[in-house]
């Protein structure tokens, strides 16, 4: 698989950005902060290294909100679209809502994280691994650990093969 880019924007189009793939991961976050900030059942994020996100337009419209001692959430001040999430705990990644990019990225959602914080009114009946605990990424049951390790292994193999393809081209 060769590298590619995807475009994205807020709803009103004031903020436009481009993301270079490959991504680092993709999953559904059920934490209370994401749910409240996005006003949603959960937020589906994908992550890339910060250098792979380029804001093409709307830097003046993009507002940054310090949501915690280590976290910053960016949104469009014109339409309110919740966009990027960054954390000093994870300086090598920026999280982007999958809903705000056009077209597919290089992976589908792979897991639920902070699943034990989920809203009481959410029904989840897929077979993705369920992770949670204080870090949000601890497998909640043995079967989740197996699925999680399997998902990581598949991703590692794909990343190795992609890197190998890029070397050959």
């Amino acid at each position: 698989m060769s590298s590619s880019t995807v475009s994205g924007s807020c709803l009103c189009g004031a903020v436009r950005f481009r993301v270079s793939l490959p991504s680092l991961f993709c999953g559904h976050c059920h934490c209370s902060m994401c749910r409240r900030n996005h006003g949603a059942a959960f937020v589906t994020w994908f992550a890339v290294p910060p250098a792979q996100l380029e804001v093409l337009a709307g830097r003046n419209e993009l507002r940054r909100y310090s949501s915690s001692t280590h976290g910053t959430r960016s949104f469009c001040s014109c339409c309110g679209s919740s966009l990027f999430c960054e954390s000093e705990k994870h300086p090598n990644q920026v999280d982007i809502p999958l809903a705000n990019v056009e077209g597919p990225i290089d992976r589908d959602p792979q897991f639920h994280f902070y699943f034990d914080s989920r809203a009481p009114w959410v029904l989840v009946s897929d077979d993705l691994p369920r992770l949670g605990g204080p870090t949000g990424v601890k497998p909640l049951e043995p079967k989740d650990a197996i699925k999680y390790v399997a998902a990581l292994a598949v991703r590692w193999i794909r990343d190795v093969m992609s890197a190998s393809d890029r070397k050959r081209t």
Partner: protein
Amino acid sequence: MIEGACLCDKIQYAVDGDIEDVSHCHCSMCRRIHGAAFATYAAVPRENFRWLSGSDLVKVYRSSDTVERTFCGNCGSALQALFEAEPDVLYLALGTINGDPKCRPSYHIFVGSKAPWYRITDDLPQYETWSDRS
């Protein structure tokens, strides 16, 4: 009484009575403004809703000729959707409600526009449009 707030807690609101009509909206506008696979809204009589604090921070975006969406100007939290065709009702983003509102989503709407990377796996009814519900 049901209460809710934005993420920064500067905007707080209250709803009198129970919340009954809750749905998941998969339209492209809701997905994009909420940055999520779908939005979950509770239909609330406008007369039952009031701001407890921070109403001066509420910003309004007109997403179409007939729809307005409100959000917090400080933290960006999505709050409501208001339809011109339904002047007596407002749609409240359920993610901003405190605790368990006891209501549960009862259907999916605009599923024809749903995110290609999200598979609906529950048994709730799925409708393409509002008129499909009747």
